[in-house]
């Protein structure tokens, strides 16, 4: 009865993008930059709109690079979740800051913790491709 397991395993194609150290480095850099920008959200958005615009453009560039790698669907989906402006992670946080002007300290702290966890998972996902 075990034969199907072996046959299935040999027949299954598990295409996976090759590991990219560059992707890990980019994610780590963006994690640190995001943490720094998010900490400013208790202050008026207008004072930091250029920093936010720069961060957004770097996040979009990272997503573009991930989209260009073959067999990379899971990582692309992760970056979309992280950066979506209508979501509830980094992209959504920046949208909320922009809409509200300032955000509360506890919310900023908790959301920053979530976003750091999200980056850690994205990095771990890339490491799993080694």
């Amino acid at each position, binding site marked *: 009865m075990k*034969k199907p*397991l072996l046959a299935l395993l040999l027949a*299954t194609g598990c295409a*996976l993008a090759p590991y990219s150290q560059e992707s890990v480095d980019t994610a780590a850099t963006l994690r640190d930059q995001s943490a720094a920008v998010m900490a400013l959200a208790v202050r008026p958005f207008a004072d930091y709109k250029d920093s936010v615009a720069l961060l957004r453009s770097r996040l979009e560039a990272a997503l573009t690079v991930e989209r260009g790698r073959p067999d990379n669907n*899971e990582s692309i989906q992760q970056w979309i*979740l992280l950066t979506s402006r209508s979501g*509830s992670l980094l992209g959504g946080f920046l949208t909320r800051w922009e809409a509200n002007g300032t955000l509360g300290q506890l*919310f900023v702290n908790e959301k920053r913790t979530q976003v750091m966890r999200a980056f850690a998972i*994205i990095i771990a996902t890339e490491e799993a491709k080694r």
Partner: protein
Amino acid sequence: MTPPTLEEVEDAIEKKLDGLFEQLSEEFETVLNEAEARVDVWIAAVVSGDLSLDEFRDLVEGEKEILELEVLHKTVSAKALTNTIKNFVLEQIVAAVETVLE
């Protein structure tokens, strides 16, 4: 050295997969327990006025999105493991064929 039989290889694979499922189950249970603890803290913060209801909802949505990230991560880990096992099986088959040919 005698290469393992197909049955031995299949046993090794089954053992590895059983271990993986057990590990996945434990990891997700930990993630859910930690999320539950965070939600309790946020509920207390809403009651004390330190978080608005809208902020609370956004944090809960964030937890759901992190779970989605975890599922995607586990998918990649499972694919990598499958590829490792597949390569191992193919190596065993090649070794068995070489032994027969010698």
